[in-house]
């Protein structure tokens, strides 16, 4: 939302106002405007601000511009609206223009909105309104920034949740199958390792035989080493695969059991030619 009432829309009729206006005349006119303004302010500060705006511009009344500033700042506070805070600050600045001008030598002596003695207090009030408006703008901007950050965080959390959802385990069937494969492969390798051990042991015995020597001894030693390598690889790798395969089988089975009740134990009753047919899956 732009300024509550664009400055261009303010009626610029102060120069066409009565030839003589005293502070008392201005106060009487102001009281009428303030009565309605106060009623509006409790229900809708923006409407009150616009009302004060229009009335203030008729004669260029700094007090009503200050009232407009306060109303807009209330609206800004209520609705966390930076545009309203800007409008409030601008009205307070217009009031300052008017108040300082009244002290200027070129000001019309027959056209006084306020008593000269009151000008200092009104300038102080305008400055307070400007300070309040600036503080409000800062506050609203910070809150908006925090909200943006929170929204971004929420978005990231949702993305993470989605990722987590994607990673959600299935019914354990895949794990069970992988476990079975790993167990089978591990068993095979373990068997191969045991065979290797046997080959190693047999050749060890042969090598210890004193009648075996020379080329025959070298061949027996080579066979024995090969058997030992096979035993090491087979038992090591096979054992690891066997253990992990069994773990996978157990976990997979558990998951399948958890997932199973929804699919299993389904009893169906259907009409048949002879009466009722009951079928089920357990």
């Amino acid at each position: 939302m732009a300024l509550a009432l664009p400055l261009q829309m303010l009626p610029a009729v102060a120069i066409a106002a009565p030839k003589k206006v005293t502070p008392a005349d201005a106060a009487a006119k102001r009281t009428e405007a303030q009565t309605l303004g106060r009623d509006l302010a409790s229900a809708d500060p923006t409407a009150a601000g616009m009302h004060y705006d229009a009335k203030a511009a008729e004669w260029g009344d700094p007090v009503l511009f200050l009232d407009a500033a306060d109303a807009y700042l209330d609206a800004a506070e209520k609705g966390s609206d930076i545009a309203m805070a800007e409008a409030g600050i601008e009205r307070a600045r217009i009031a300052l223009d008017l108040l300082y001008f009244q002290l200027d030598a070129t000001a019309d002596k027959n056209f006084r909105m306020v008593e000269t003695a009151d000008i200092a207090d009104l300038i102080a009030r305008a400055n307070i309104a400007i300070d309040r408006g600036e503080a409000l703008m800062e506050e609203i901007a910070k809150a908006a920034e925090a909200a943006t950050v929170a929204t971004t965080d929420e978005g990231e959390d949702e993305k993470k949740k989605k990722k987590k959802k994607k990673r959600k385990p299935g019914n354990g069937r895949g794990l069970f199958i992988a476990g079975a494969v790993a167990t089978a492969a591990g068993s095979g390798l373990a068997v191969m390792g045991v065979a290797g051990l046997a080959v190693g042991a047999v050749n060890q015995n042969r090598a210890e035989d004193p009648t075996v020597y020379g080329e025959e001894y070298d061949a027996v030693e080579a066979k024995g080493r090969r058997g030992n390598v096979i035993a090491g690889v087979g038992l090591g790798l096979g054992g690891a695969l066997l253990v992990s395969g069994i773990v996978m089988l157990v976990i997979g089975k558990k998951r399948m059991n958890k997932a199973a009740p929804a699919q299993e134990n389904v009893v169906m009753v259907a009409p048949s030619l002879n009466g009722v047919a009951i079928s089920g899956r357990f």
Partner: protein
Amino acid sequence: MARRTRTQTLTIGLAVALGLGLGVVASEPAAAASRMACEDPSHLCVSGGGKFEPDVQTGPKDKKKRVEKAGSTLSLEVEGGRGSLFVNGRYAGTAPMSSISVPAGRNDVQVRDGSTVLAGGVLTVPKGASLSVTVKHP
């Protein structure tokens, strides 16, 4: 030979076109800036037939000669800031303003931002003129 000449002609043509294009592009912001900027020492520039005399005031004769309903209007813009306009000792509005009615003749004008007077003096407004006033905020 003819092919080489044609290539040279094309190159020169492209260079001229590029130069003209760049010239137009470069001159556009400069023209806009000269249109907008008010470099007058009084900080007030007026267009549309009016005349501004800074730091002077009107006399009683000028006040008598003013014509209130002469159909003269004034628009105000403050460069680099804000300001309110006072005409003949009274508040006339806050910039930006467009086509507000002003008396024809010599008028006391002042544009100020709070306690700072941005420009002040006598603005002579012809009958039926539409003046455009630009004030430079210091």
